[in-house]
């Protein structure tokens, strides 16, 4: 086991900067998600850490050892590929045994280790099958067993759940997390699925256009996004744009919005406020005046029922705001109804423009 440090890593393909001066510290034993849209550089970064590709500049260390020019086969990493990449000419057991066998381990040791790895992923009885006889979820488990049986220093996962259907994906998320905890391996996980990143990882790094936009624990990024991109890419957010007043913004129509979280900015600059849809309370009347809460009036334009909650789309000053309300069985608001929206300044994050 070992931590991974990526320092000032850049990588260009022709004129395209796939990675632009990225630095991240992956703690030993942590579960780290690299999140970003396609083309953000997250897979390129994973390939630099794996050693399939070398950075143009910058340093990568695994367990303190500099590896940026070390080829992949010498890095002692384990990798799970998006399409699993199981060897179709080998049985499940031989697939898992591959890493030990090329290392020249004794047959008896290989057999024990392979069985242990297959038991760990709950496929102990399927060693004799061929990959094409397995379901998607089972192939996924074999790929995982194959990657960890060699006791790598770091486990790299390239969108490993992308090819699975929703229900299976949730199962595998839990399963993957369990196995990761059990062996305590440093894990770096590339995904474009924000929910996956939120539920599974200790820390998230959000990438965009080859740059690291923000990194930190999931709750911190969710509650304190530092950019409009981070706010909208990880979760949903209502954005208000205006001029800062120091601890909030003033919208073009003069309405003030107080922000209790986020950056402290000099008054007068352009800035935005982000509010999560579930933080907004929606009501038909203004109720008792509340000096501290943010308040806006609007009109419900649409309601989307999603079982345990509903999303209301509220028109206000040419902007559509989203409000998510738990369905408690009481007040259901009709489309076209005038409503009052309130939320606390603590739920409002001030973000510098740009």
């Amino acid at each position, binding site marked *: 086991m070992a931590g991974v440090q990526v320092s000032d890593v850049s990588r260009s393909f022709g004129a395209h900067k796939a990675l632009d001066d990225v630095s991240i510290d992956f703690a030993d034993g942590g579960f780290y998600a690299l999140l970003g849209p396609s083309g953000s550089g997250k897979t390129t970064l994973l390939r630099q850490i794996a050693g*399939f590709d070398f950075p143009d500049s910058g340093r990568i260390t695994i367990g303190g050892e500099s590896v940026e020019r070390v080829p992949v*086969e010498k890095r002692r990493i384990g*990798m799970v590929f998006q399409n699993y990449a*199981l*060897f179709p000419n080998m049985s499940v057991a031989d697939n898992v045994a591959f890493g030990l066998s090329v290392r020249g381990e004794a047959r008896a040791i290989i057999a024990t280790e392979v069985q242990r790895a297959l038991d760990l992923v709950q496929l102990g009885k399927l060693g004799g099958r061929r990959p094409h006889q397995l379901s998607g979820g089972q192939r996924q488990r074999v790929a995982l067993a194959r990657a960890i049986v060699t006791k790598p220093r770091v486990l790299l996962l390239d969108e490993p759940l992308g090819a699975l259907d929703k229900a299976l994906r949730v199962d595998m998320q839990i399963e993957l997390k369990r196995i990761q905890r059990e062996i305590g391996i440093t894990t770096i996980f590339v995904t474009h699925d924000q929910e996956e990143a939120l539920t599974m990882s200790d820390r998230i790094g959000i990438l965009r256009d080859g740059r690291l936009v923000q990194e930190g624990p999931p709750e911190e990024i969710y509650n304190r996004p530092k950019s409009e991109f981070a706010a909208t890419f990880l979760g949903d957010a209502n954005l208000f744009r205006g001029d800062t007043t120091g601890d909030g913004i003033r919208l073009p129509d003069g309405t003030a919005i107080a922000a209790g979280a986020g950056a402290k900015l000099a008054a007068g600059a352009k800035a935005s406020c982000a509010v999560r849809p579930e933080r907004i309370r929606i009501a038909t009347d203004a109720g008792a005046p509340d000096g501290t809460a943010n308040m806006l009036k609007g009109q419900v334009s649409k309601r989307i029922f999603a079982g345990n909650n509903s999303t209301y789309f509220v028109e206000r000053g040419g902007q559509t705001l989203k409000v998510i309300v738990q369905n408690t069985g009481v007040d259901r608001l009709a489309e076209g109804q005038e409503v009052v929206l309130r939320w606390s300044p603590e739920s409002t994050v001030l973000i510098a423009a740009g």
Partner: protein
Amino acid sequence: MAIFLPLSAMVFFSFMTELPLSGKPWAFTLGNYAAFFSQSLYLTLLLASLRLGLEVTLWCVVIGYPAAYVLAKVLKGRSREAIFLLVILPFWSNGLVRIFSWAMVLREGGILDTALNAVLPFKINIDLMYSYPAVIIGLVHSYVPYMVLTCYLTLQAIDDSLIEAGRSLGASRLQVLKRVIIPLSMPGLVAGAALIFVPVVGSFMEPRILGGRTGTFYGTVIEDQFVAVFNWPLGAALSFILLAVVLVILAVASPVLRRAA
């Protein structure tokens, strides 16, 4: 029917004493087949031809497989197209032209001899013409595109992530080649080998033109029966014996090859 009609006519001929076209009286006989077993020459030539087929096939693997690998896994875009064209070009050229152009290259005072002597500081005499190596060179050149094409197709179907997975598990490039790529490209190698081995065993053009006196093989003897001696029944019988031998070899080899694939 249309496919088997000419061949069935040949089967018929192979059991005749005389060609019915010549107007001479004829009868059914097994003599043409017996001739093969009565003269050790035919068996010797058949073995020589089988060895030729094996050698040419091996050389085609040695040259064709790496070429196919480079085409499928190393080259991209325009350069791949250009090299591909170069591989296919001899395939499209007339067989006779191809063989005579080799004759120009291989003979004493020919292109290879002149070129090597121009480059090398010492005098060497290259005269490969009318020799076994000349036959091998000519045949390999004619048949290597089959190997390149069949191997290219199977190699291209191997997902690059399999190679990366192998290396991520600590395997060197050579180990990945041995344990993953070659087993997965076995169907292409087998198909290529079958496409090459069978016609090479019966080949006569390259042995005759490039081999000269040394170029007497089973195929040239069959050709003689049809073109020079006009003993079609014997020629037909000899070629069916060859067909039978080749089929037996493929049948014996196929379970082994299937397991490897």
